[in-house]
Structure formats: C-alpha cells, structure tokens
C-alpha cells in the first residue's frame, strides 16, 4: 500500500513537473496555408484550420509541448490556374506556404519543381485517415507513379436541362424522363442534344438553347472526350492533339453557334448572365457541374427563386453526361478533383501533413461536400446522414462510375487555354473548325515545343 502511495506521489510529482516544464516551453507553431478565395469551397481552408484542434489534442496527449495554429492566406486569383502560377511565384521568392490547395493537374508541375511532398509512405502509415479514400481519386494525385497530394474533393460535371421547356414544345413525360437512360445506352447523341435545343428555340420555349462557361476550364473537355478525343498519349505520357476528334468537337460548337442554339457571344458573357439565363428560364441547357445546384440553382439568387426540395427540382430540371458522339457510343464524364499539397521544404512539413490527414476524415470532408455540393473523397462518407441529406449529391454520385480526369500533365493548363481560344474562335465565327485546327497545331507546337504529339486520328 505504501509502495503504491509512493508511486502515486512520484507519478503526480513528475506529471506536475512535466506540466510546468511543458507550460514554460510551450511552443506555438504557425502553419501557413494558401487557398484561393473561392466561394464554392470555403472549407478547403476551413477544414485545415479546424483540423488544428484534434491535432493539438493529439500532440498534448502525446506529451508534446507544441501547439499548432493555422494561418490562411486567401489568394485573389480568378481561377485555379492563375492561383497555381501565384503559388509558384511565391515559392520562387521563398515565400511559399507550408500547405496549399491546388487543382490536381498542377501536381506534376509542383512535384517537378520540388514544391510537393512525396506522400506514398505517409499515406501508407496513416490508414486511419486515408484507408477509405475512393481508389480512383489517387490517380489524380500521382506524378510519375508516386503520390504527391491528397484528394480534397471530387465532383461531377453535366448538362442541365429544363424539363418545363420540353413540356412546352409538346414532349411527353416518357420522353423527358427517358433522356438520361437513352444517353447512358448511347442512343441519344450529341447531335440529338443540339437538335433538341434547336427545337426548343425554334418553337419559342426559350430564346437560348444552350450556354456554357465563358472562360477556360474543364467543362468542355468532356464534350471533346465524347467525340473521342484524348489529351495524353497513354504510352508515352506526352500531350497529344488528335486532329480529327478535336475537329468534330469544334464542329459541334460551331454548328450550335451558327444555328442559334448557343449565343455567338457565349464566351464574352459574364457568369451572372449565363447562370441567370438558365435560372430565369431563358436558356434550355446549361453545361456545368453538380456544385452549381447549391451555388445558384436553389434559392433566390440569379433572378429567380427555386424551392429547395428534391421532388420539385427533378420535376423541373434534368441532367445528363456528355452524350455519345455516335449512336451506340459511350457518353463521357469528367471530374476535376482539388487536392492538398504539402511543401516538403517547410520545417513544419510533418505537422502540415498531419493537418491534411485530419482534414481528410469523413467528419470534416463531408461538411465541405454537403455544403458546397462536391462529391465525397471516401466511400464511408456516402452513408453519412449529412451527405445523404444533400439529395443532389446522392443523385449525382452514380455518374462517378464513368468519370475521367484531366491529364496530370504540368503543361495541360496551357493546352487547355489554347483549346478554349480555338473554341471561342469557332463560336464567334472568327475561325472555321478547319482553321481552328491549324491554329491549335501552330499555337500548341509553339508553346509546348517538343512536348506535343500531333496525330491525324486516334482510332
């Protein structure tokens, strides 16, 4: 008994001593985080900030004298490409962050420059955080076969269409409800989509047939993919320009603009005009992604008020992936994951990586997913009540099965910018599809020098 008492006293004394020592040496570590100011994902940074709490608790439990505080810098760039260039500039002058958010296709560039931590072993050592991540998402974080980033979210892109307008032009419910299935089976093609939009416009149900994003970005890549285009040579990893397939995609856009389906000035419209046109029922089809549902399609933004319930919504709006180019072909879909990257040169790299691990837990990630309508990163999230309540995610998740990613090539951002210019050229009538292919070949081979492979036709 005495021994025990003595032991207890010694233990008490030592823990008290340890407590005072740690208190006097307590060190606050500031982890610098860079995330683009983006209203479609405030929790990308917010979850890392919140992850400091469990990390600090764990550090304390382990007897560490460190506490972590996250300092967020919100980059003002208008898109992920511009933001990535800003981050690269910051690194070049030794002002780089400890952890940052990037679009997955930039991972290669960061890894090549030595600004992205190789995370294979970290992922393996921490299955409690990463064991349940949807496997296909890891593909989007790899450069030369190694993991350099952690998936932060994923999403699904689609063509939204207004069912009321189809009713107005006399289509029956069976036809309207059957469109997604017909697209899945490859019976409803890209041309059918254009024709339907033209019919809606011609019969006066809407002044605009179809609108899409006004700037360079991922959406239209799925259109080109539907026409059979691939942007990377699978064997060599080189960027590729498949002339015939890209040309068919450009011809589709050119015909839409020429036939009055898509406004010729779509690419000089503002986001507000584009989204407003769909919400106020002036446009029949809007090409974007599932997050658009919460961002503007429900509620009173963009000039109209739509109720926030599943039944009402799906009675009015339908969505499909990019239909097949020819009957019997495959529809195409695209996901554009956002990732967390850790700076390997930071003296706080280990802590930053741990913050990412905590922020990747279902509790945090589902908050981001459900509030901003991005699909989950782990399988388990799909059964969480918060996720299930976000009915649009539940409804869109099956489309993930067919999803493809933007190539993880450091030069793809430039490729895409030029492809968008060509698209703008044909839509505004400045270029014929044929001239646009010349333009693409010329610009791309100039920009990418030896890094581009030009092929007449893929298959």
């Amino acid at each position, binding site marked *: 008994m005495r021994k025990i008492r003595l032991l207890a006293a010694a233990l008490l004394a030592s823990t008290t001593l340890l407590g005072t020592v740690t208190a006097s040496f307590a060190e606050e570590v500031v982890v610098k985080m860079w995330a683009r100011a983006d209203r479609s994902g405030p929790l990308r940074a917010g979850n890392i900030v919140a992850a400091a709490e469990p990390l600090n608790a764990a550090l304390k439990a382990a007897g560490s004298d460190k506490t972590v505080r996250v300092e967020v810098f919100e980059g003002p760039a208008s898109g992920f490409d*511009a933001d990535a*260039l800003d981050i*690269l*500039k910051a*690194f*070049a*002058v030794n002002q780089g962050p400890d952890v940052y958010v990037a679009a997955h296709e930039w991972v290669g*560039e960061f890894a*090549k*420059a030595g600004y992205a931590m190789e995370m294979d072993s970290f992922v393996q050592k921490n299955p409690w955080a990463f064991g349940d991540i949807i496997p296909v998402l890891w593909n989007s974080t790899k450069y030369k076969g190694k993991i350099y980033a952690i998936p932060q979210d994923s999403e699904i892109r689609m063509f939204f269409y207004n069912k009321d307008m189809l009713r107005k032009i006399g289509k029956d419910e069976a036809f309207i409800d059957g469109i997604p299935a017909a697209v899945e089976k490859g019976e409803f093609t890209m041309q059918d989509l254009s024709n339907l939009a033209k019919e809606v416009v011609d019969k006066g149900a809407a002044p605009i047939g179809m609108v899409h994003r006004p700037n360079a970005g991922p959406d239209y890549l799925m259109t080109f993919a539907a026409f059979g285009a691939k942007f990377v040579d699978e064997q060599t990893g080189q960027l590729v320009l498949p002339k015939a397939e890209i040309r068919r995609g450009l011809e589709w856009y050119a015909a839409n603009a020429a036939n009055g389906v898509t406004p*010729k*000035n779509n*690419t*000089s*419209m*503002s986001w507000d*005009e584009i989204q407003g046109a769909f919400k106020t029922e002036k446009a029949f089809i809007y090409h974007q992604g599932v997050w658009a549902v919460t961002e503007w399609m429900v509620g009173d933004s963009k000039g109209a008020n739509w109720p926030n319930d599943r039944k009402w919504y799906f009675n009015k709006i339908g969505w499909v992936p990019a239909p097949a180019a020819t009957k019997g072909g495959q529809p195409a879909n695209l996901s554009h994951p956002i990732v967390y990257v850790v700076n390997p040169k930071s003296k706080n790299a280990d802590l930053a990586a741990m913050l990412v691990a905590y922020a990747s837990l279902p509790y945090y990630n589902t908050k981001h997913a459900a509030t901003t309508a991005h699909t989950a990163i782990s399988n388990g999230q799909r059964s969480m009540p918060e996720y299930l309540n976000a009915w649009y995610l539940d409804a869109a998740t099956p489309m993930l099965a067919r999803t493809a990613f933007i190539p993880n090539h450091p030069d793809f951002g*430039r490729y895409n*910018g030029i492809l968008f*210019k060509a698209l*703008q*050229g044909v839509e*505004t009538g*400045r*270029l014929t599809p044929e001239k646009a292919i010349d333009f693409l070949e*010329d*610009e791309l081979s*100039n*920009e990418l020098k030896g890094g581009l492979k030009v092929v007449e036709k893929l298959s």
Partner: protein
Amino acid sequence: MRFPSSNRRIWLDRVLFLGPATLLLVLFFVVPVVVDIGIAFTDMGRDLRVTGFTTENVQRMFGGDRRLTSVMLTTLIYVSCTLVIFNVGYGLLLALLTTALPDRSGSFFRAIWFLPRMSPSVVYALLWSWVVAPTDYGLLNQVLLAIGLPLADLKSNFPMVLVVLANGFIGASFGMIIFTSAIRAIPQHLFYAAQVDGAGPLAIIRHITLPAIRWQLSFVTIYQALALLVSFEYIWLITNGGPFFDTTVYALYVYRRAFDNGQYAYGAALSLGLVLVGTILALALWRFFDMRALLQRPRIEVG
C-alpha cells in the same frame, strides 16, 4: 565674380536637382530594361528558375509566332484611332468649346469630362461593361429598346470600337486640360485684333489658336502615343483582349504570354520589342514635331 569652392557647389546642385529624378529613372527604367534583356535570353518558365541561356525566344518572335503580325496591326489601329480621334482630336475640340463658353459653364463641362479620369480604372471599366452588356439590361440596349432599335452587342461585334471609345473618353481629358491652359495663355489682344480685322471663329482658330498651341499639340501627341502603346488595363478589364484575339494589343499580348502562361522569358523578349518600338516611335515623333526647337534656350532673356 568668383565663387569660393564653386566646383563643389556645382556638383552638390547637380546631385540635389538631378539626383532624385536620375535615381528614379535608373531604378524604374534602366534596371528593369537590363533585367528584362537578361531574362529574354534565358529559359525562365513557370517556376522562375533559369537553367540556361538561349536565343530561342528572340527567334520565336521573328519566326515562330504567327499571331504577332495581327497583334501589331491591332495595336496600330487601336493607338492611332484613340490618339487621333479622342486624345488629341476630341481633347482639342473640348478645349476650344469650353474656352469659348463663359468661364463657369466652361469649367462645368470640363469637370464632367474629367470625371472618368478621377474614377478608379476598375470602376470605370465595370461601368462600361454594364453599359454595353449584350442583354436587355445593358444601359445602351435599354436606350436602343426605348427608341425602337434592335439590341446591340458591341463587345462581340465591334470590340475595337468599344475599346477605342472607353480609352478615348478617359484619354480626351488629358489633352483638354493642357490645351485649355495653353489657349488661356494666348494674349487676349490677339483675339480682339483678329475680330477687329473681321476674322470669323474658324479663321481665329486656324490662324491664332492652333499656331499658338502647336507645342502642346506635339507634346500631347507624343506623350499619349507612348502611353497608349503600353497601356492595356481597360482592354483587359472590358474585353479581356477578345473575342478571340480581336482586341489583344501588343502590351496585353506580352502580359498574357508572360503571366497567364508563365512563359516569363518569352514575355521578356516580347516586351523588349515594346521598349524598342516605343523608343523608335518617340524619336521619330520627336523629330517629326521638331521638339528640339521647343527645348532650346530662349534667345531673349526674360525678366
């Protein structure tokens, strides 16, 4: 008369009077140009690292870049139209009209035309975007609708007209202010004498006003030509250089290549071209307007 230690004094005066300006010029013109020349011959890319020296960028400017010719043509149209129609032409018209008015109303109109210059460029550009918005909410289209005309879409159909207008409305005020003060400085008795001799308003402008403000006209032309050559902020904000490359002027093209694509070395080579063209243009105009005569020492000792 002899000055003690006059040499030192002269040197001190030189440093005091010319020093700050020289320092500014060296820091913000000479050093950047030297750095730019350096970068133009490297392979600096998105990660801002230099791994070697190359003449590839200059070669690309003179051979590989097919877009460059049309960009230069666009620049020529943009600079000459804005300069001739607005910055000099309209500025002069405003100066003539507002000085012919009674003082108060003259100042009032000048103040109105000065407003765009006083508003922040982003606000000014946003106002233009709203005015020409292609929907029926655009101010221009509301006016057109009210008088029964079809809707217009300047941004897509006449983008160059739009950028010339937007830049011209702001640029005219510079000339207006300078010309106004020059016209004010013309001795009044010349106007009275001309009127007594029976000269009409147009003859007065042609034979008295214009010759008297010749130097100001030359100065504004040179200064604004160079300013337009390197400015692109309103174009960038209003049309973003588009649609396609329709309003991509040289300076914007440099910016896009360097900062949108991260090709810093090629951007540096392109901007070297801009420095070269600007210098040649400045020297040519200098010669054309015989500006040296303006800067000569006065032959008469005044006061």
